C-alpha cells in the first residue's frame, strides 16, 4: 500500500497531493505541467517534499516532521523513465543485471529468463543501447527496473517518446507486465486511452492538486477537459 500526503513548492508552482493507493496499477493522470513527474519523483526519493509523508507497505520513506528521508537507492522502488536512460557504456545484458548487482541480490536465472521472455528482448542482450530502436530501449528499461526486484514500479510516461506504431507495439507488454509480474505500479500518463487499458485506479492531477480519485471511470467524466 502506498500512502502519499505531501506538499512541495517548485518556483511559482505548488504541488499538494494526498492519496492512498492499493490498486495494482495506479494511474496518475493529468496534462503536462500538472505536477505528475514531480509527484512520482517524490515517491522515488529523487525529490524531497517540503512537508508531508510518504509510506510504502507501512514503511516510512519520507516524514518531514521527523526529518526522515530514505534516499532513492534504499527505497527498492523501480523507475522507468520516459527517455529509457539505459547506460550507454553497458550492453543490454549488463544494463539488465545492474540493479541486481547494486542491491547485492543473488542471481535468479528463472526470473531473468521470465523477464527476458516477457519483454521479448532475448535477441538484444549483446547489443549496446545505441544500437536499439526507441521501443526496444524502452522494453530493456522495463526489464532493468523489474530485475532490481522493486517493491513498487514507477512508470513516467514510458510510451511518451514513442510514435503511435511503437506504442501499440509496447502496450501488450505492459498489460502482460501488470498481469504477470505481480509488482504494484504507479503509471503516469496524459493519455486517457492508455490508462483505461492499464490502470486499476486513477489519481487525477490538475495544477498541482488532486481533482479526482477512484476507478477508471473517473477518466470518462473529465477526459473532455484534457
Amino acid at each position, binding site marked *: 500500500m502506498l500512502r502519499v500526503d505531501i506538499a512541495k513548492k517548485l518556483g511559482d508552482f505548488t504541488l499538494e497531493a494526498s492519496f492512498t493507493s492499493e490498486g495494482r496499477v495506479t494511474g496518475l493522470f493529468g496534462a503536462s505541467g500538472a505536477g505528475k513527474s514531480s509527484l512520482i519523483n517524490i515517491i*522515488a*526519493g*529523487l525529490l524531497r517534499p517540503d512537508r508531508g509523508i510518504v509510506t510504502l507497505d507501512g514503511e516510512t520513506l519520507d516524514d518531514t516532521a521527523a526529518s526522515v528521508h530514505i*534516499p*532513492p*537507492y*534504499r*527505497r*527498492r*522502488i*523501480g*523507475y522507468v*523513465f520516459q*527517455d529509457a*536512460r539505459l*547506460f*550507454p*557504456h553497458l*550492453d543490454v545484458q549488463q544494463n539488465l543485471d*545492474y*540493479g541486481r548487482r*547494486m*542491491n547485492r541480490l543473488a542471481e535468479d536465472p528463472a526470473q531473468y529468463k521470465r523477464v527476458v521472455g516477457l519483454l521479448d528482448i532475448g535477441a538484444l542482450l549483446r*547489443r*549496446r*543501447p*545505441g*544500437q536499439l530502436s526507441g521501443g526496444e530501449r524502452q522494453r530493456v528499461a522495463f526489464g*532493468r*527496473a523489474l530485475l*532490481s526486484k522493486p517493491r513498487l514500479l*514507477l512508470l513516467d510516461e514510458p510510451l511518451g517518446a514513442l510514435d503511435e506504431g511503437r506504442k501499440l507495439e509496447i502496450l501488450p507488454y505492459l498489460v502482460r507486465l501488470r498481469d504477470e509480474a505481480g509488482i504494484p505500479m504507479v503509471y503516469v500518463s496524459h493519455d486517457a486511452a492508455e490508462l483505461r487499458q492499464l490502470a486499476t485506479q486513477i489519481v487525477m492531477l490538475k495544477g498541482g492538486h488532486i481533482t479526482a480519485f477512484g476507478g477508471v471511470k473517473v477518466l470518462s467524466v473529465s477526459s473532455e477537459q484534457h
Partner: protein
Amino acid sequence: MFDISPTEWTAILLSLRVATVATLIATPLGIGIAWLLARRDFWGKALVDALIYLPLVLPPVVTGYLLLLTFGKRGMVGGWLSDHLGIVFAFRWTGAALACGVMSFPLLVRPIRLSIEAVDRKLEQAAATLGAAPWKVFLTVTLPLALPGVLAGMVLGFAKAIGEFGATITFVSNIPGETQTISSAIYSLIQTPDGDVAALRLVLVSIFIATAALVASELFARRATRRLHGN
C-alpha cells in the same frame, strides 16, 4: 650523434619517473576535486577553483619558491613530514615530482571536470533508483562515462610534468642523478661549451616522448569512445 651518454640516460629516466609518479598521484586527487567542482556546491568552492588554477597563471619560479617555503626542510609542511613520516622533498626527486604534480594539476583537472559535467545526471538518477549508493553511482556510471576526459587529463598532465622546468629548478635545483630532469639537463648543456650536440639529442628525445604521449592518448580516447558508444 645518437650515442646517448649515461648522464643523459639518467636525466631521461628521471624525467619519466618524475612525470609518471606525479601523474599517478595527481590523477585520483584530480578526479576527486573535479567531481567536487562539477557536482557539489560548497562554501569556498570559488576559492578552491582559483587555487587549483593558480599554478597556471603564477610565474613558475614563484610556485617553486612557495613550494620551497612550504615543503622545504624548514617549511611548515616539509618539516613535519620529514620529522614524522621521514618524507623529504627538498633537493630530492620526490620534490621534483611534487613540483611537476602541482604545476600540471590545473591541466589535469580541467578535462576531467568538463567530462564529468558532461555526464547526464539523469543516468546517475536512474542508477540511484536501481539501488546504487552515491559512490557506486560514481564508480559504475560517472567515472566510466567520463573516462575519455580522465585519459585526456592524464596525458596533458604528464606532458606538462615532463616538460616542467621553472618550479622544479627553483624548488629542488639541478642535481644530476637526483633532480636533473631532461629540461634542466638541456638548460645545463646549453650553458656548457660544446654541449650543443648533447642538448640537441635531449631535445629530440623530449619531442619523441611528447609525440608518443599524444599518440597514446589519441588511441586511448578513440578506444574509450568506441567502448562507450558501442560501435
